[in-house]
């Protein structure tokens, strides 16, 4: 029963706290924190785009749709202007086990390796 509840809680990938950050390193000028989608060449990374996480055997362990992204600073430097070079970061929850290897699949681009580190995982689109 507990396992069923746990499985249910991971369905859709949106109910639990985010544990995966997907970063589109697009370098677009934005205001920090503003909602975003991936800029060229990462336009396929946007709210509503389907994602799935597969384990090493190719079994889908989590899936869902990307939420709105959030603009984060691309460089550790404040140029003192409102719009600065940014990346677009999406946060999602996937049912991952520590020590296991996964891959994130988006509508375009190659599948990206994914693994938990200290309970979190980060993927940079390339």
């Amino acid at each position, binding site marked *: 029963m507990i396992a069923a509840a746990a499985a249910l809680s991971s369905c859709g990938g949106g109910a639990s706290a985010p544990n995966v950050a997907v970063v589109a390193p697009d370098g677009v000028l934005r205001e920090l924190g503003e909602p975003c989608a991936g800029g060229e060449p990462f336009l396929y990374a946007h709210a*509503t785009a389907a994602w799935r996480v597969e384990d090493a055997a190719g079994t889908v362990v989590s899936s869902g749709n990307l939420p709105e992204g959030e603009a984060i600073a691309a460089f550790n430097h404040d140029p003192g202007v409102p719009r600065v070079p940014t990346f677009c970061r999406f946060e999602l929850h996937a049912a991952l086990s520590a020590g296991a290897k996964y891959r994130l699949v988006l509508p375009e681009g190659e599948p990206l390796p994914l693994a938990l580190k200290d309970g979190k995982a980060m993927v940079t689109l390339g």
Partner: protein
Amino acid sequence: MRRWLLLGLLVLAGCGADQARDGGRDTLPGSLPAGVTFAAPTSTAVAPPLELSLLDSTPVEGARLWKDRPVVVFFFASWCSRCATQQEALAPLAEKYRDVVTFVGVGGQDKAPAVKSWLDAHDVTYPVGIDGGLQTWRRYAVRQPPAVILVAPGGKLERGWPGGVSRDVLAGQLERLVRR
């Protein structure tokens, strides 16, 4: 009988005033109204080519659109939440300047059914096409939606707003350009 006649007239009037929201040929502007002139452009930069197939497959060339009047180009996507906010700013201006300023939407990274639903949901009454290969987006250096470009009559690239433009700012630009 009289009441029914009046009701019929009202319905007919309502139908006549209903604007197409399919982004196709019927949304292209009509003749430029008499007495309308335009201020000289402030820029010498030439607008990049804009070739678009509207949602009903009508071909459109930017050079023909901006030959005799300003053009506002809106780069958008149906999945872009900020594009909805941008459209809220554009809608009243598109209505105010109908046949005087041409508004055109250029979708990217999108599919026709999603775009058509979006046009209907967001009161888009101007022509729209999908730039499937993102050629036009790249020509205008659009890296993400929304982005808005203002082209002056004759084809000079007057202003561009990556990330979008407020209604007040665009209204100010159009008021400066349009004389009637």
